[in-house]
C-alpha cells in the first residue's frame, strides 16, 4: 500500500499529451516536498526520541554502564546476571501472578459494566460518566488516594469492617501481608481502569448490528444463548484488544506498587519495572537495567505480534 511517487506509472498519460501533463507532475513533486517538510518534525521526534533510545537500550545492555563512569563492554554478563538475581526471579513471578489476576478480574468487571450500560435507558449517561470518571484522576494521584482510603489512620474501610465485625484491631491493608498488599493494588486498578476498558468494549458492543439480536429473538434464543452465540463471537476483536492492553499494562506495573505498597512487605509486591528502576538509580547499574528492559521488551513484542496476528485473523 505504499504510495511512492513513481514517474513510470504516469508514462502512458505523458505520451498522450506531454504538454498538459508536465505541469501537474511538477506540482505533484512540489507537493511531495511539501509533505516531507510538514512531516519532518514528526520524523525528527520519532527518530531522536524513539528509534535512537530503542537502539541505545540494546547497546547499553551489552555494557557495564555505571551511572557516573564511562561504560565498558561486558556482554553477555548483564543477561547472565538476570538469571542469578534473586529479586528478578521473585519480581518476575510476582508480575506474572499480578498480570493474571488483573487481566481476569478487570476483564470480568469491564465487560459487566459495558453490558449494563450498553442500551439507552434512563440514567445510563450518568452511570457511564460515574464509571469513567476515575480515569480523569492521574494514576499516581489515584494511588495516593487509595493509600489514604485504605489506611487505618484516616480511611473509612477498616472502621466499616470493624463495625460489622469482620476484622478487629489495627489493620494495615497496603503493607500488612503480601496478599492484602496485592489485593489493595488490585482494587485500585479495578477502580481506575474498569471504566476505560468498559468504554472500549462498549464501542465493540454497539458495532454489532441490532438485526442480528432481533433475528435471535424471533428464533426464540434465550438471553444466555444470545450472549454465548452472538455477543461473544462478534466482540472477539475488541476483546483481544482489551486483553492486550491489560496484559501489557500489568506487565509494566510500577506506580501502584511504588506508591501504595513500596514493593513490600519484604519485596513481595516488587514488580519487574521496579527492579529496573532499582538497578538503574539505586544500584546505579544502567547496563543491568537495560538488560532486563531488553528482555521485557522482547517478551512484549513477541506477545503483541502474536496478539495482532490473532486479532487480524479473527476480524478478517
Amino acid at each position: 500500500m505504499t504510495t511512492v511517487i513513481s514517474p513510470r506509472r504516469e508514462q502512458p498519460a505523458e505520451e498522450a499529451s506531454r504538454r498538459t501533463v508536465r505541469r501537474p507532475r511538477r506540482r505533484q513533486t512540489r507537493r511531495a516536498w511539501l509533505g516531507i517538510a510538514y512531516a519532518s518534525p514528526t520524523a525528527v521526534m520519532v527518530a531522536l526520541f524513539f528509534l535512537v533510545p530503542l537502539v541505545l537500550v540494546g547497546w547499553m545492555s551489552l555494557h557495564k554502564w555505571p551511572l557516573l563512569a564511562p561504560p565498558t563492554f561486558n556482554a553477555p554478563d548483564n543477561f547472565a546476571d538476570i538469571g542469578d538475581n534473586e529479586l528478578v526471579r521473585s519480581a518476575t513471578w510476582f508480575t506474572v501472578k499480578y498480570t493474571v489476576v488483573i487481566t481476569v478480574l478487570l476483564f470480568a468487571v469491564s465487560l459487566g459494566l459495558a453490558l449494563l450500560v450498553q442500551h439507552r435507558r434512563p440514567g445510563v449517561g450518568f452511570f457511564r460518566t460515574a464509571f469513567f470518571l476515575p480515569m480523569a484522576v492521574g494514576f499516581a494521584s489515584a494511588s495516593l488516594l487509595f493509600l489514604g482510603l485504605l489506611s487505618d489512620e484516616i480511611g473509612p474501610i477498616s472502621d466499616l469492617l470493624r463495625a460489622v465485625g469482620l476484622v478487629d484491631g489495627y489493620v494495615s491493608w497496603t503493607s500488612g501481608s503480601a496478599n492484602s498488599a496485592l489485593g489493595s493494588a488490585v482494587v485500585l486498578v479495578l477502580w481506575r481502569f474498569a471504566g476505560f476498558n468498559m468504554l472500549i468494549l462498549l464501542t465493540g458492543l454497539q458495532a454489532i448490528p441490532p438485526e442480528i439480536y432481533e433475528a435471535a429473538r424471533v428464533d426464540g434464543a434465550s438471553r444466555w444463548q444470545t450472549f454465548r452465540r452472538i455477543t461473544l463471537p462478534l466482540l472477539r476483536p475488541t476483546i483481544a484488544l482489551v486483553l492486550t492492553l491489560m496484559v501489557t499494562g500489568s506487565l509494566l506495573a510500577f506506580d501502584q506498587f511504588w506508591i501504595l505498597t513500596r514493593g513490600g512487605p519484604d519485596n513481595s509486591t516488587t514488580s519487574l519495572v521496579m527492579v529496573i528502576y532499582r538497578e538503574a538509580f539505586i544500584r546505579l547499574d544502567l547496563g543491568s537495567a537495560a538488560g532486563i528492559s531488553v528482555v521485557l521488551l522482547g517478551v512484549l513484542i513477541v506477545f503483541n505480534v502474536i496478539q495482532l496476528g490473532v486479532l487480524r485473523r479473527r476480524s478478517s
Partner: protein
Amino acid sequence: MNRSRIGYSVTGAALAILFLFPLLWSGWASVRTGSGFGLENYDRLFTSDNGVRPHHVINSLVVSALTVGGTLFVATLGGYAFGRFRFPGRDLLFLVTLAILMVPYATILIALYVLLGWLGLEDTLIGLSLVLIMFQLPFSIFMMRNSFEAVPRELEESAQMDGCASVGTLVRIMLPAVKPGLITVGLFAFLTSWSEFFAPLILLNSTDKFTTTLAVVNMRTASHGSIDYAALEAGVVFMAVPCLILFAFMQRSYVRGFTSGAIKG
C-alpha cells in the same frame, strides 16, 4: 421486564456510588480536621518540610504547556502531511510512529535518560517535555490524520485557486476545520503531562525541578515514620481538580477521541 428494569437501576446506582465514593471521600478527607472542617490540611501540604512549593506547581504548568504546545505543533503538521500529501516513506513513518504504542515506555526510559544527558537536557523541564511529546505522538498523529482526511478536498483546492500559499491554506482554512481534533489532542496531552509520574521520576533529579505529582508523591516516599495522610489527600484533590473541571467541560470530545484512538491504535 419490569423486574429487570429495577434490577438494572439498583445495580447501576450501587456501582455508581462505589465508583464515585473514593473521589467524594478524598474531597471530604482533605477538608476534615481534628476539630471539624477547614483548610489546615492544604496549609500543611504547602508548608511542611517535604511539601509542595509554588515552583513545583509552576514546573507542572511549564511542562504541561510545553507538552500541549509541542504536541499540537508536531501532530498538526504531521497529521496534515499524512492526511493530505503523498511522499516517499509516508507509510513507513506512520507505521513507526504507531509502533511507539507497541514499545512500552518504561523499557526505553533508561536509554532516554542517557540520551538527554548527551544532549545536555538532563534534569530539565524541556527534556521531560520532549519525551512526553514523543509518547503523545501515536495517538495525536492518528487523530489529526483522520481529522484532516475528513475535511472536504474542495475547501483546500478553492483556497489554492485563490492564490493562498500552502501554509496560509493550513492556518486559515484547514485549522478551523479540524478544531475538534485539536481540542481532543490538546486535552489528552494536558491530562497526561499534568499527572505523569514515572517519566518525571526518572528524568528529573533535583527537587527544585520536581513537578507537583513528584512533590506530592515525595511527601509519601520521603517520609520516615508517620505519613501525613490528610495532607496527601489535599494533594490528591489539588492535582485532580483541574483535570475534573476540564473533563466536565469537554467530556464529549474527550471520550470520542479516546475511543477512536484506542480502538484503531
